[in-house]
C-alpha cells in the first residue's frame, strides 16, 4: 500500500514543474499548458485526500476542477487566437497594449 505522503510528493513535484513552466515559458499557449499541469497536480492531491479519508467528495471536487479547466482553456485559447490575428505572435513579451 502506497502511503499518502508519496502521492502528495508526486503532486507537489508536478505542481512545481507547472509553476516553473509558467515562469519560464514565453509562448502564451505553453503558459496555458503549464497551468494545465498545475490543475492536474491539484486534482491528484484531491483524489489522494479522497482515498485517505474514504470520502467521495474529493473526486467530485476533481470534476469541478476539470470543468473550470475546460472553461479556462476555452477563453484562454480564444484570447490567444485573437492575439495571433492582431499581431501574429503569441510571445508574452509582445503583449504590452496596456502599458502606460
Amino acid at each position, binding site marked *: 500500500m502506497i502511503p499518502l505522503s508519496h502521492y502528495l510528493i508526486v503532486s507537489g513535484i508536478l505542481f512545481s514543474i507547472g509553476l516553473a513552466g509558467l515562469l519560464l515559458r514565453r509562448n502564451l*499557449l505553453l503558459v496555458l499548458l503549464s497551468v494545465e499541469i498545475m490543475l492536474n497536480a491539484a486534482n491528484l492531491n484531491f483524489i489522494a485526500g479522497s482515498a485517505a479519508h474514504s470520502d467521495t467528495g474529493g473526486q467530485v471536487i*476533481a470534476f469541478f476542477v476539470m470543468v473550470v479547466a475546460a472553461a479556462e482553456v476555452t477563453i484562454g485559447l480564444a484570447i490567444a487566437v485573437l492575439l495571433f490575428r492582431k499581431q501574429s505572435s*503569441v510571445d508574452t513579451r509582445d503583449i504590452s497594449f496596456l502599458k502606460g
Partner: protein
Amino acid sequence: MEAVLFYASSAVAILGSLMVILLSKPTRALLSLILAMTAITVLYLLLNAHFVAIAQIIVYAGAVLVLFLFVIMLQGTAAVEIPLLKRFPPLTSAAGILAVLIFLSLFIRAAVRSPEFKMIGAPGDVKSLGLTLFSGYLLPFQLTSILLLLSVFAAVALAKKEDA
C-alpha cells in the same frame, strides 16, 4: 505490483511534465503533456477513482488537449518557442527556478510530516459519485453549469469579428 505501477507511472508523469516545459516545439510539448496525463490517470486508478480516471482521459486528453493542438496547428510555423537559455535574462530565469525550488522544499517538508492514513479508497463508481454530486454538492454543480454557459458566451464574443 501496486508499488511498481505507482513508481513507474509517477516517473512517466514527472518526466512528461518536464518535457512539457523544456521542449521547444509546441506540438511535441503538447503530446508529452498527453503522455503525462495518461500516467496520472494510472495514479487515479490506483486510488480507486475509476470514473474520474476515465473522465480525465475523455475530457482532458481527448477534448481539451486536442483543442490546444488545433490552435497550435492554426499558428503553423509562427508558433516556435525561443530556446530555453535565450528566453529571459539568466538572472531572471535563476530567480524563477529558485522560487520554484523553495516552494517545492516547503511542500515536501509539509507532505512528509502528514499523518499516516490507511489508504482504503473511496468508492469511485458512477453511482456513488452521482449520489454525492447531486446530494451534497448540488449548489456547486449548478454554479459550474452557469460557468460553462458564461465561458461559451465569452468565447463567442471574443471570436466574433469586430465589424459584424
